[in-house]
């Protein structure tokens, strides 16, 4: 299987005044095509930082990150933005929809940035909103939708540009268990249908249950990796 993202001895240090905090500590990790992986661990274990590094919105203090075969350190801001725009989708804990746009417009805007012709945009957005169960909410604004519906819009927004990978930061944290279950089922379905890679950061056991690979983090280090399909536990980084 082709590698989408590869992290080599990656560390991330945050400096607050005189205090240095190592959020990610010497991590080696590979994300392959078709994965449905969760980064699990308590608060402060470095899940979100690792996700940000994989999403090319943060840069490592040490080590190398490869997107396919490109080392991201060699890219300038414009190239990194293009890389994110074309290949990486994001789902946020607080949904982060644009409040002034409708569900349709929120889903369509990454395509607008991607310069797709209008007829194609319309068809794609409508199909995808139908797929995430929001056919009747296309022209609703975020404040007219429930949390679950907003997160579905966010999923559709991440999927619309057919990215290689979708990074979801605590996607169920603001949802009740029923909605969380539905959202995870939807993402699982999309993963198997489109082969889009999903990587979550979470401390929700439900998300961990759904994931095919579970990467446990502690104090910025990978504690263990559980490959659920074979139920093998690797200790790559111990």
């Amino acid at each position, binding site marked *: 299987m082709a590698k989408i993202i590869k992290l080599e001895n990656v560390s991330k240090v945050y400096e607050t005044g005189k205090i240095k905090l190592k959020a990610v500590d010497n991590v080696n990790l590979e994300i392959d095509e078709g994965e449905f992986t969760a980064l699990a661990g308590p608060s402060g274990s470095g899940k979100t930082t690792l996700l*940000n590094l994989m*999403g090319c*919105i*943060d840069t490592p203090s040490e080590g190398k990150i490869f*997107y*396919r075969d*490109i080392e991201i350190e060699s*890219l300038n*801001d*414009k*190239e990194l*933005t*293009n*890389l*994110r*725009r*074309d*290949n990486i*989708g*994001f789902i*946020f804990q*607080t949904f*982060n929809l*644009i*409040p*002034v*746009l409708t569900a349709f417009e929120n889903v369509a*805007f*990454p395509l*607008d*940035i*991607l*310069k*797709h*012709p209008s007829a194609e945009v319309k068809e794609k957005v409508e199909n995808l909103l139908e797929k995430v169960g929001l056919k009747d909410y296309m022209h609703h604004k975020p404040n007219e939708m429930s949390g679950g519906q907003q997160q579905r819009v966010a999923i559709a*927004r991440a999927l619309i540009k*057919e*990215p*290689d990978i979708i990074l979801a930061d605590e996607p169920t944290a603001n949802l009740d268990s029923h909605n969380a279950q539905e959202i995870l089922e939807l993402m699982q379905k999309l993963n198997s249908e489109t082969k889009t890679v999903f990587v979550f950061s979470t401390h929700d056991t439900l998300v961990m249950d759904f994931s095919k690979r579970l990467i446990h983090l502690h104090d910025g280090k990978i504690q263990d990796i559980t490959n659920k399909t074979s139920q093998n536990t690797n200790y790559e980084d111990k």
Partner: protein
Amino acid sequence: MGFTLEGKSKSPQVEHKEKIMKFLFLLAMKNLFRYTKRTLITASAIAFGIILTLFVDGILRWADDNSIQNLLNFETASLRIESQEYFNEAEYLPLKKTLPHGEAIKTLLQKEGVDYAEETRFLSTVVNPETGESYNFVGIGIEPSKMKKVYRFQEHIVSGAFLNKKPNSIFISSYLSKLLNRKVGDEIVIEANTVNDMHNADSFVISGIFDSPNPAVDKKNYYISFESANRLLDMGNKFTALSIHTPHISRTFKKLKKLISFDDVLVLRWQDLAKDYSTLSETKKGSTKSLLFFVFILAAVGIINTMLMAIFERKQEIGMLRSLGMQKKEITYTFIFESAGIGFIGSLFGVIFGTAVNGIFAAVGIDYGPILGDMDYGYRVPAVFHTQINLNTIIVVFVFGILISVLISLYPALKASSLNIVDSLRE
């Protein structure tokens, strides 16, 4: 799922740029009404500045245009010919510095078909013989029939008739008539020094009272016939200036300058003769610029505040947009468009209300009389000021309002685009 750093699209560059710009513009417009109150307050500040600019510019333009007309019609005439020596000492009205080559110049003017009048201006004291009350005024000796052709007093006679050729007839302003408490038919005594510096006095009968729209004339001058002045001042047939009326001032000015080749004779325009007014007119241009600066300050404070607040409130959204692949410059454009939108709303309301206000005051006028009283305010217009609507100014302030809003938004817009993505998302 291919990976390119340039982007997946195969569509032409221009089409994509237009599409992005269209999306950014729509997003900006929607954001504009996200905080309707704030947008309207900021736009109102710009509108207020523009209304004020249009209003003051309207008054100044009206005053300027009318002042020039009133200078030409009642004070300086279209052109005046004086000797160089007289012009140098003009404030003392030196009677000895008469116009040389007067007869030759008159012949030339007749040949050119130009209306002219011989004039002698002199310092004098006007006295009410019954009360002894006296005031210093400038007397002007001028041939009545020629005065009619050079100046426009005949349309502004409030009592009696125009200056006539009768000996010792005087034509005064209603201002002077009120000062002296004299009316048509009453007697006034004029005291003046002759050309030989001998004190002389004579009594005159008021033939008519005028009320011109030029307060500088009303508060300073009176008119007697050329013959009466010659007698009072012992001038013989000499005069100090030739006043000219022509509808084609610049053309006639150039022509006369060429034709009158005497070194000691000057052809003068109103700009040379009413120096106080020329200075005032220049200052006026500066005041419009000061007002535009005031609009700039209003727009700057309002827009910077509004934009920085928007950035602060939308940090997470900016982070999201950047993560999803929006370039820095595209974030910058969004905020610039938003600011331009505020500038557009402000400028639009500003020019609409500003023009309406100007329209009202163009018709009604504002009476500054009670404030100004007898004060010399420089403008050659009555104390009831009107405004003038000027399309040029409307366009300039409208464009200025938008441009300045865009310019001011550059700082917050660049600030927004340079936010750290991770920090923004963490907000």
